[in-house]
């Protein structure tokens, strides 16, 4: 119900249901802080709401909400991914999938493919207007995750989400 109301208000601004991006940001961050994003039932809905917010505010007629998107990205990356130090590299090569560093991502994707599917959707929505909010460290984390999901079709929704991300990024 909460996400339905907020989602509706974002698509139909004004009147009785009126939530600003700052309101939505506060709502999502408060919810994320309260729970384990990987195990909570609400995480998928929160990520779906985040993707909707990003999509709606990608339209140039809407104000720029880079600050909110950067905070949301940081929050979800910290909540979803392990704190791993990554090797320096210019490009992501398929050989990475052979290295032990990807194992934690493999475990994560299996644990909740739906949440990662929604996370990839959110990231793909940031490409056209909010890619300047991407940090090197976060890009590495989600790109590892996307590569692992692409190499693991049995992950179902996560694989689908990773594929959609690639398609979306090629179109952009």
């Amino acid at each position, binding site marked *: *119900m*909460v*996400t*339905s*109301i*907020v989602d*509706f*208000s974002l698509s*139909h*601004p*004004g*009147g*009785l*249901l*009126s*939530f600003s991006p700052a*309101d939505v940001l*506060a*709502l999502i961050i*408060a*919810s994320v802080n*309260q*729970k384990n994003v990987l195990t*909570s*039932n*609400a995480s*998928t*809905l*929160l990520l779906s709401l985040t993707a909707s917010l990003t999509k709606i505010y990608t339209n140039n007629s809407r104000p720029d909400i880079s600050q909110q998107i950067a905070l949301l990205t940081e929050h979800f990356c910290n909540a979803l991914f392990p704190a791993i130090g990554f090797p320096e590299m210019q490009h992501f090569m398929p050989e990475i999938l052979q290295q032990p560093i990807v194992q934690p991502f493999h475990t994560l994707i299996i644990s909740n493919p739906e949440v990662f599917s929604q996370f990839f959707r959110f990231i793909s929505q940031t490409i056209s207007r909010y890619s300047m909010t991407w940090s090197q460290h976060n890009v590495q984390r989600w790109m590892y995750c996307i590569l692992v999901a692409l190499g693991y079709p049995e992950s179902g929704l996560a694989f689908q989400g990773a594929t959609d991300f690639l398609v979306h990024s090629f179109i952009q």
Partner: protein
Amino acid sequence: MPWRSLWCKFPIAVVADGKSLEVALFFLTSVKNEFTLSRSALQTLLRWIFEILENASPHSEPLTLLYKTVLSFFGMPRCLHSPDKGVVPYATSLETFGLSFKALEVSFQAITISSISTSAAHAIDKLIRTSTMIALHVEQIAQAINQLLPTHIEISDKVCIVEGYTFLVAQRVDKEDVPRHVSPVFQAFANLDIDSCTSGVALEALKIYFAVGRSLYTASPGELGARAWTEGVGLDMANRIGKSVATFSRRFSEDFEVIEAFCPNGI
């Protein structure tokens, strides 16, 4: 024997006995199944039905069935062929015979009875959306709904009525005056403390708020930019929703998904 000529053989005088009840049900069912009555036959049928309803309690078993059938008839989205007006909704035919208020009264009585409350809610929704006579009494309807909301009827029935009322307000009232007419719905929850109530009670309030907000958009999407929503009672209501949503998500954070499962179409 053609139904119309059969109908003419049952005068209103025999209303009180059991057989006339059966005949009333038979004809209502016929009408529901797209049997077309003449204007005069329909008028006679409706007057007859109201006569039965006025003299009988819906708590008795056979009359519950009659109530349910009548309420379904009021609330039906299908249309009735009228020789003079072409195709009209059933609720409009009540209007033609000056029976809209009686129908609304019957529906408000019936909504408190759980076995027929859904039919009654649909009937109320249909009547207040379509009747121009009822539309002249927006404030009285608001009062009736305000009294109904704290009762123990099903939330889906409350939502149905609130949507009908909001549609009426959005269609008939000046856009700057809409918040004032919507506020009685919110006043029904004036004593609700969102910081201490149960999740069920809080959820019910959210569903009603959402029903109002969504219906305003559906009924008149171009009027949500009215100044009345950025000041005074309009702003107060919008802020109340914002606070309720934030408090709900903080207090019942794990109810997100469960709630969605209970809320088809976001209701």
